[in-house]
Structures are given as structure tokens and as C-alpha cells.
């Protein structure tokens, strides 16, 4: 029987505070550790020095941290507890924005490294091991933006995604190109969705050479030939004055991150018997992460004409002790009411 994952909250082992069940951890790509939830058996109104809003939460495999975040205020009637991953402290949420993009003096900044380091100095529990970007993302610092919005913009420009994992390190990385996991034929199927598909990016920007508004148009010719022409508008004017080279690069990065590929209508549920490493070792479900690539054998990839489909995992949800894991591809397009509402709220928050 596999050793269970254990939880620490506020420096205490959770099992020392009270019995708990239904421990579920969710990771996302981008984002990293997203959410952990569980239910405790405690009296209504019970208090404990560790069980409060913003208490650090660790989910551990032995002594190895597999999920890190902060507790949201627990429901002291039902004792349903939810913790938010560390990356969410940089983004908008129902309780406001935890950290803004400021420099060490408290002024607005568009330099990611400066903004990250200053936020860490103000208490953001991250580690920056390598440079995220030392270049100002936008020319103007007149307005305030959240740290998350700044990092999102930089990631989009570079065709990458950013995340904060259990070690607290903020990373910027491209999608993997080789699979970490293999799914046996017949274990899952994916439906195609074209809701978000676009063959062409139309970007509007302010040209720095003459301060006139210009348009850049880039097209994925292969996608256009196979799936038709569809345009997607991108407003690049918040960057301030910039070059056509940079505007084109950003438009190309948006295509490279999957805009010109079809999305998926569903996720998959698979067991440890269905998923193996490339070397044929049955997977431990706790090791499968959002951001990993999984090869779905037995599904024909029309684009590459191969009998398998490689997808990058956009969300991994696992309830500890269960024999299956829920995996959602990166280009999943919301079909359930909950997903649609969540997408709408996220877009509204960015505005």
C-alpha cells in the first residue's frame, strides 16, 4: 500500500490537530500549485493557532514537498478547508490582489525581476532562482498592475508559461516537447473544440519610430489551410511605443502557445495502471504534474499524422488515496458551467 501524502499547516502536522479526509490537490499549467482542499472532523467554532487565513500549507510525500500554498479562512462550521497555491498571491482574486508590480521604492514597475524581488522583500513567499526577465515589459509605469498580470504578459511575449511549484521557486518555461508519461490505448479519448481557435493574430500597437498606431498580422499558414481562416485581435497598445519586430514576435508567440491549434472539450481520468513512464514503469499518480506532456496512444493526431497524440497537461487534480487522477489538457475549452463561470471570472478580474 502506497504511503499516504501528509499535510502540515502553520508548522503543525495536520493529523495532530484533528482527523481529516478527502485531501485533494490541484495543479495548473500555467500557475503551478493551484489548490489543496480537505475536510476536518472538528467541533463547530473550534480554534487552533494554525488554522487561520494565510497559514502556510505544505503537502508532503515523506519529507518532500509536493504542494505549497496558503490557507484561506476555513469554514468553521463544516470544516471544509481550502488552500491557495503560491502563484495565486500574485494574481487577482475574490479577496483582492495580494501583490502588485512595484519596485523597492514602492513605485510601479514593468521590470519582472525587479517586481518579483520587491514583492519577495515585502513578504511574498517565493524564491527567484533565475532571471525571469530584466527588461521592462511596457514603456509606461503610470498605472498599477498586479504582479501576476505583468508575469502573464512577459510569458505571452516569450511564448512560455510561468508557475510557482512546491519549492516556492517562480519559473518561466516553454511547454515540454517530449512526453514524460504514456497513456495506454483505449484508456481515454479527447474531443476537439474550435471555440478559441484562430489562424491569424491581428495586433494593434503604437509604433515607436513615429508614434502612430499600426497593425501587425501573422498567420499560421498550415492551420489556415486545414481549419480555415479565423482572426483574433490583440491589443498591444498597453505596451506603449514599441517596434513592429516586437509586435510581430508577440503575435507569433501567441500562435506558438496554441492559438492556432484546436482545443479539447474534455479531460481524462486515468489510473496508475494506464499511465507509465517512457521506460514502462507504472506511474505514481502524485508525480504527474500539470505542465508535463502525456502521450495518448491510440488517438490519431491529424496534424502530425501519427497514431498518438501528445498533449500538455493543463490541470492535474488528485484526491489522495484514489487510484485515478483527473487530467485536463492545456487547451481545454470550458464546457461545464463551473468551468465557464471560472473562465468568465478570470477574464473579468484581468480587466
Amino acid at each position, binding site marked *: 500500500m502506497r504511503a499516504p501524502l501528509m499535510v502540515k499547516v502553520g508548522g503543525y502536522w495536520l493529523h495532530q490537530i484533528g482527523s481529516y479526509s478527502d485531501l485533494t490537490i490541484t495543479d495548473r499549467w500555467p500557475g503551478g500549485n493551484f489548490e489543496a482542499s480537505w475536510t476536518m472532523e472538528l467541533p463547530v467554532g473550534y480554534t487552533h493557532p494554525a488554522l487561520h487565513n494565510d497559514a502556510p500549507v505544505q503537502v508532503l510525500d515523506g519529507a518532500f514537498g509536493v504542494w505549497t500554498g496558503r490557507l484561506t479562512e476555513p469554514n468553521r462550521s463544516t470544516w471544509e478547508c481550502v488552500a491557495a497555491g503560491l502563484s495565486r498571491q500574485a494574481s487577482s482574486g475574490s479577496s483582492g490582489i495580494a501583490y502588485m508590480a512595484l519596485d523597492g521604492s514602492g513605485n510601479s514597475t514593468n521590470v519582472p525581476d525587479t517586481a518579483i524581488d520587491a514583492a519577495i522583500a515585502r513578504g511574498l513567499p517565493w524564491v527567484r532562482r533565475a532571471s525571469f526577465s530584466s527588461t521592462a515589459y511596457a514603456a509606461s509605469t503610470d498605472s498599477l498592475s498586479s504582479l501576476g498580470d505583468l508575469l502573464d504578459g512577459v510569458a505571452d511575449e516569450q511564448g512560455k508559461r510561468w508557475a510557482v511549484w512546491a519549492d516556492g521557486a517562480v519559473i518561466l518555461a516553454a511547454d515540454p516537447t517530449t512526453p514524460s508519461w504514456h497513456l495506454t490505448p483505449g484508456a481515454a479519448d479527447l474531443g476537439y473544440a474550435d471555440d478559441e481557435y484562430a489562424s491569424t493574430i491581428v495586433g494593434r500597437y503604437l509604433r515607436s519610430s513615429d508614434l502612430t498606431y499600426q497593425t501587425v498580422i501573422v498567420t499560421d499558414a498550415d492551420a489556415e489551410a486545414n481549419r480555415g481562416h479565423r482572426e483574433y485581435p490583440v491589443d498591444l497598445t498597453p505596451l506603449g511605443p514599441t517596434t513592429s519586430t516586437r509586435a510581430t514576435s508577440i503575435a507569433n508567440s501567441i500562435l506558438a502557445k496554441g492559438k492556432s491549434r484546436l482545443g479539447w472539450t474534455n479531460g481524462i481520468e486515468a489510473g496508475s*495502471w494506464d499511465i507509465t513512464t517512457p521506460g514502462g514503469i507504472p506511474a505514481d499518480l502524485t508525480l504527474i504534474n500539470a505542465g508535463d506532456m502525456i502521450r495518448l496512444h491510440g488517438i490519431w493526431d491529424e496534424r502530425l499524422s501519427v497514431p498518438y497524440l501528445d498533449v500538455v497537461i493543463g490541470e492535474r487534480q488528485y484526491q489522495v488515496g484514489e487510484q485515478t487522477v483527473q487530467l485536463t489538457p492545456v487547451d481545454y475549452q470550458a464546457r461545464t458551467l463551473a468551468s465557464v463561470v471560472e473562465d468568465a471570472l478570470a477574464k473579468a478580474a484581468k480587466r
Partner: protein
Amino acid sequence: MSAAQLILGSVDLLGMDGYEALGDDGSWGSPQPIDVTLQSLLQDGSVVVTQGYDNREVSLRVRLTGSDSAELASLESTLFAEVGKRNTLTYVPPDGWGPASVFEVVTSRLEHTLDDVAEVMSCERTYGLTLVCEPFARSADQFTVVGATVSDPAPTPPPPTTITDGVSGTNWTVHTAKPTTYGGVAFSTNPILQLGYNKRDVKTTHVYEYTATFSVGQQKYLAIDWDMRGEYASMSDISPAVMLNNAANSTTGGTSLLRVGQMASPTNPGYTRTLWAIPSSIATVTRIRITSTMQAYGPDATWNSYERGIAVRLIQLTSQPLSSGTARQKTMTITVPGSAPTVGSLQVSHSTTALGDLLAYSWADSGCGYTPPMRGFRVSGGTLTVDSSAYSGAYDSLGAPVTYERSTQQVPMGLYVIYARLRLDNGASATVQIDASTLIGGNQLPGSAVTSKQLISGTIGAWKIVPIGRMMLPTVDAGSNGTLRLVVSNGGPSALSLDEIYLCNATIGRATVVNAGTLGTTPTPGAAPSTIWINSPTTDSPRPSVTAGVATDGSDAYNIESLVSSSQPHRWEPPSVSVFTACNALDATTTLTGYPRWHTHAADDQAA
């Protein structure tokens, strides 16, 4: 012969006090298996895995008999006081031979059945008693098993005495159910591979005998380096069984030995070294009999592959328990009595030295020779400094990568949490990188490279056991033919020293790590502990706990969970569990205490 007993708490339900349990429609219930059904792969049917067992429900009818209704009410009141709470139900069989079985009652309920005729005519009332109990019955008495960890005499036992190095066939004979030839082909005459078995899907028992007269002297253990050979070869048990004969029983019977430890042989790569305790009553041996039941399962387990069997490479008499590097790192087999998984308290203790950082890992052994420590498998690196205070006996400067190589046969498939005993030599933090790969014939297999990185921080100059990686191992399923290569390197910026790394398989085992090294090396009540107890969760206390102290009776014990970095509840499953401990004390003793558990009826503990 004695009368049966059935006691709920303090009420004897078969006694003369007015209570009588009626056996006509009673039931002990059964442990309820928790099965998980998995979709099978492209086949009909499904894979069903029993993950554990849920509570059982015991039901009894109890008749109360009194002189009048007032006494009946009093009897009911006394019985109801035992209901609806944690309790025990103890059953002693009527013939007087079987020991008592104890059901741990989680909760219970009492239901009255109205029978006015019986009440008026016989002054009796009958009740239905339903008890929700833990899944398994237990024995009435606890067991205590002491692991083979202490050298005798400590700390410098006599050197081992080699009986045979396994190179010569002299003194070896073999008995097998199979003919000595098959299809005109003679079985192997190689003395290392003392014949074998050839038939697919059929279990055959083979006996290998080494006949020679030698004195045991002061040595306590018999050590044998052995290995299974041949494709798809497997054994029914996790090691051969060993029996010793002497002059008194040279022709009949013999003395069966108890396995007390098993790990990878430190001197014969690829072999498993198993340690058996020699009873003090045996002074002279005339024959060693090694018995194994083997079979071959697999698509290529062809009928004429006769060269399967046990290879014996070494037989030694020794007084040294199994250790890795130094006597700070011990591997032992803990015999778990009973027939069902139980909970227990694992105690690690030393009389004069504080334990420092402790890693205690338990696992279901397969006999492959797997143990967590890797110092013995280091093949290259930078500067290696011999240091008797290091857990492994030496440490590497991680200025250069350190490479370890180990047969994949000795690395059971699963998810590994990799720990290291490290020291930060300067600065505040460093990134440790592990590059794992699998090789055959010296060639790295395609798709086998896996990397894990972990940021390490700590106090300069302080050794600490920390997690440094987490990955599936071996990285490729290469059967017993592959080599696992691990390269540990330091990505900086701080300098690191590396004492030992530990591969802890989370799929088959559980690890507890207590970082008590910061509390000093002198046992001090309330501070540096020389005894640590790792307690499994129970129904009474459904949480694993770790306590520490100096007095072995626990009189100064305190909860040390704040220094516990890994708290995986250990699982004690009969007949035995392998345990590895690493701590600062030389020859620390390891003891498991718990109740033997059984399906429904306890057996003789001594015979278990």
C-alpha cells in the same frame, strides 16, 4: 478444560451474574475488505485491489435473568454502561486450548426484544447487542520484537568466519524433485548455481546442502550471500529457508533458523545477504540445509531453460548485524506475529548516545536485496574523506558530481523519495541535482534520463537529513539486467558535503525522519533524545505520533513532532517487515511492540 469466557468490558456475558450470551444467531462478523476496481488494459475483466479492511460488526443476543424485575433493570443498567463507547470484547474458547481473542469495540448499541411471557414466567429479558469492532481480532498480550542491530560483543565483535566462498563445489550436494537431466541435457554442474528447475508455472522445492563439521563458537548469526538466477525465476518466499543439523539430529529434522536481516551484499555485487540467528543451543554444525520453493512465470519461461536456481556465493558465521558503512546504519527483519496487519510502536534507542537525525524506513521486502543507503554503490566522485563520525563512514565534497550505480534488480519499481545526509559548507543555500538513468551493457537506455532538483538550505557546518529528489525508479523497466545510475551534483551557490543518500521507495515502504541532530549528542531529558518512539495510528488515537526522551520507559518522553520532517505511518504486516535505521548512535537498538492481530481467532503467540 475450562469454561468459555465472553467479557465485554467488565461484564462477563457467560458468567453466573445473570448474563448469558446466546450463540444461536450470534456472529463475529468479518473484516470488510476495501476493494478498488481498476479498468484492465484492453482485456475483459478488471483488476481488483484490496486496499485495506473496514470495521466488522459483531452481533449477540444476551439473556438477562434475575429474581425480579428490579434486578433485571439493574442488570440492564450495568450492561448498558459498557455500550456506546470504546471497549473490548474478549472471547476465550470453551476447550481451554485456544488463547483469548480480543475485539476492539469502536462503538456498540443495545436493543431490547419484548417478550412478556418470558419476563413473567422466567423473569428473563433478552437484548440484541451489536458491536462495531476494528477489523481484526487481537491477542490479549502484546508482543515485543527486538531487531538484530547490536554487535556482540559491542562495539567490536569477532571477525566473521567464512564457511565457504561459493567458488568451490566441495561439500555441496543437491536434492531436487526434477531429474538430473532433461531432454538429454545435463543440469548445470556449476557449483555456484547448484542445479535448478526448469518447468514453467510449476512450483518445485529444491534442497541444497553443505555438509561439513564446524564449530559456531561465539558467533551469533549465519550469513549467506545468495541470488536467484535465470529469466523469470522467482521464489515463493523472500529468502531461502535455512536449517542446521548437528550430531544429535544429523539424520532427522534439524533446527530451523529465524531470518533477522536482509540487504544487498556489500561484498558480492548483485547478491542478497541474508542473516539468520543461530540459537544458543547449537555449538557445532554438521550440515547446512538451504531449501527454496521456486517457479518461473513469464512468456519466455521455456521448458528447457534449466539454468534457473539459487546461486550461493558466501556462507559466513558472524556476530555483526547487517549494517551499511558504519554501525549507525542498520538493516533488520522484524518478525511480526499474527496473521493480519497490526499497529505498533517502533522504538529506536541507545543507552549513552543521543540519536541525532534519525531516518527509520520500513518496507515489504521482496528478497531482492533492496536497502535505502547508497554509499556502497558509489563508483566515482570528487574528494572522498573517511570520517568515522559520518553515518556512512565517509563523505564526499560535492564540488564534483558523485555517481552511484546499482543493479536494477535491487531497486524495486516505484516512486522514490530520495533523502541525503548533507552539510552546508558555506553560504545559505544550494541546489542539489539528481540525474538518474538506466543502462544495459554500459549503454544508457533511450528515454531513461530523469532529472530532479531541490533547493537545500540550512546551518553552515551542520549535518542534516533532507529530501533531495523524488522520481520513479528504475527509470526504465529493464528487469534484472539493467544498472541504475544516479549522479548527484551541486548546482550551487553554496558548497555542500554529502555523507549518504537514501533511496526510500514510497510505493512499498514508509519513512519517518526526525531532525533531532540540532539538539546535541549528549542525551538530555527534554532536549537531545536517546530514545525515539514512532507510533502507528490506532482507533483510540487515530494519528501517527513520534515521541522522544532519554528514559526507555518513556517517563521523560515528549512529543517531538515539531522536528519530524517525514511522518508516514508504518504498516506492520506478518510475517515480517524489513526496517532500516540511520542515526548518530552506534549499534542503536530497534524494538517493535504491538498486539498480534488475527482474522477472528487468536492463535498461540509463540507459535506465530
